[in-house]
């Protein structure tokens, strides 16, 4: 069966510090991978998606970036965090041919 992991589960970082959130998927090959952000009391905003290694599409211009160094690894990064980067970050995967998405447990990021 497929599983998706995210870490860390929670993170408190000062403004201006770097960020690295990691997401890995097990039990599937060549998944589509996604990063979403959920602000408090709001829906999910798609940040990045990837259909393959090294292929990243950005949906929202911002100070975040994403990378996919391996088939089942997706990393969300920032060089300098802003207060507005606080939120709940969710990674998801889907099969290349499928449309259902399967979400990880999320990372709660607080920028202070």
């Amino acid at each position, binding site marked *: 069966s497929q599983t998706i992991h995210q870490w860390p589960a929670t993170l408190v970082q000062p403004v201006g510090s770097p960020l690295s959130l990691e997401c890995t998927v097990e039990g599937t090959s060549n998944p589509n991978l996604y990063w979403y952000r959920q602000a408090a009391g709001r*829906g999910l905003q*798609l940040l990045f998606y990837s259909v393959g290694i090294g292929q990243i599409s950005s949906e929202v211009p911002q100070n975040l970036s994403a990378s996919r160094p391996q088939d089942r690894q997706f990393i969300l990064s920032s060089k300098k965090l802003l207060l507005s980067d606080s939120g709940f970050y969710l990674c998801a995967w889907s099969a290349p041919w499928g*449309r259902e*998405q399967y*979400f990880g*447990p999320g990372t709660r990021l607080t920028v202070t």
Partner: protein
Amino acid sequence: SQQGEEDPQALSIQEGENATMNCSYKTSINNLQWYRQNSGRGLVHLILIRSNEREKHSGRLRVTLDTSKKSSSLLITASRAADTASYFCATFYSGGGADGLTFGKGTHLIIQP
């Protein structure tokens, strides 16, 4: 831009009653999906309905889709305390330059024991 909008934003009912949530969207879609999110957790996929389908069932869930009105509804029958969660509709569209889902803000459902 926001594609799906759920209504109501919050719903509180007694255990055993049926819960109905609605979703409206703006542009053409390939499919519409409903997800559940327990507090502080990731989302769980519930059901997908394609644009050429009008109704779909899964256990106690019933989803309808009216593409002429650009709306969908999720019905949870015989609600249980464990159904307390936020429910999101999400639309998928191809050719829009994105391959991700567009989510609404969700309906927060509370089941009173």
